[in-house]
């Protein structure tokens, strides 16, 4: 057989990603929300998304995604990161400590929600499941997906 072909729709991948755990309760690695503290503010230009990674933890530059309620991708302009030969993803750019991403108001719908996904790992090799936050664009209330 030339090759085993299984169609992997984005739906299944997205579904599995959504089924990944909400940070919080348990196991011994610190919860994702503690490892990668997230905050959001509205400013004159739009939204300021901020993360603060605990020492020994980092976020992947190419793992940030934002999608509107309508399923439209919102382009995120991420700052250059630190290059790292990562045990999970090879040669990548990462963020340690604080990182901020500005989303211009013009790129956002006037109402509805933004689903923001990001992922990070710990220096000890433990890799967190993707985290998805739902942000109400009117109130900026953040809920777990």
């Amino acid at each position, binding site marked *: *057989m030339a*090759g*085993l*072909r*299984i169609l*992997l729709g984005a739906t*299944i*991948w997205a*579904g*599995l*990603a959504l*089924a*990944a*755990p*909400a*940070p*919080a*309760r*348990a*196991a*011994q*690695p*610190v*919860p*994702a929300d503690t490892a990668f503290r997230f905050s959001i503010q509205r400013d004159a230009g739009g939204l300021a998304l901020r993360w603060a990674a605990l020492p020994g933890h980092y976020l992947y530059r190419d793992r940030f995604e934002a999608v509107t309620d309508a399923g439209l991708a919102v382009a995120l302009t991420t700052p250059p990161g630190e290059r790292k030969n*990562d*045990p*999970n*993803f*090879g040669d990548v750019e990462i963020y340690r400590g604080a990182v901020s991403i500005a989303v211009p108001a013009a790129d956002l719908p006037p109402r509805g929600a933004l689903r923001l996904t990001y992922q990070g*790992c710990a220096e*000890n*090799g*433990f*890799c*967190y*499941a*993707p985290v998805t936050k739902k942000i109400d664009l009117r109130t900026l209330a953040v809920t777990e997906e």
Partner: protein
Amino acid sequence: MNRRTVLTALAGAPVVFSACEALARTPLPVDPQAPVGGNPKGDVTIVAFFDYNCGYCKKAAPDLDRIVAQDGRIRLIYLDWPILTKASVYGALVALAAKRQGKYEAVYRALIALPGGRVSEDQMRAALATSGADLDRLQRDADAHRTEIVAQIKRNAALAQKLGLQGTPTYVIGSGVASTLDYEGFKAAVAQARARGGR
């Protein structure tokens, strides 16, 4: 989840093994469809949550194999939890399809041995050829049982969520939870599980 944490310094690096009291009261509900390795009648169970593109899962795999083989009384349950890449989902699908012909562990070993964290579907397909699995049957089983296999993977993710697991690798050993273990770490965790009554 109420836990007490035992800190043990092993092999020069601290290993954290968290004893989960909820699991001590009620054993982990094991999916009857989950692949089982080691000694199915063993007195201690290791439930491995892993991803085929998880670097530390790959690093720990030989140590996990070694402790299971040397101990002889460990039941090993594989719970595919693809959280890293789309190819990880592909790996889980083909491995679970291979279970239909009794080749899950052969495919697991072929895939988990692939170096790097960005192993593609093509690289996984090439590795399948070395696994000893009947690839024609694997294709048929993957096509015929795709819905059930995807549902099984989602059950694994749901169990991880229920337990509050954060990512991979995660090993539930008896009533404890651990992540980045080496051989000595596995050995200590199994001993602790036995000291608490096993299973």
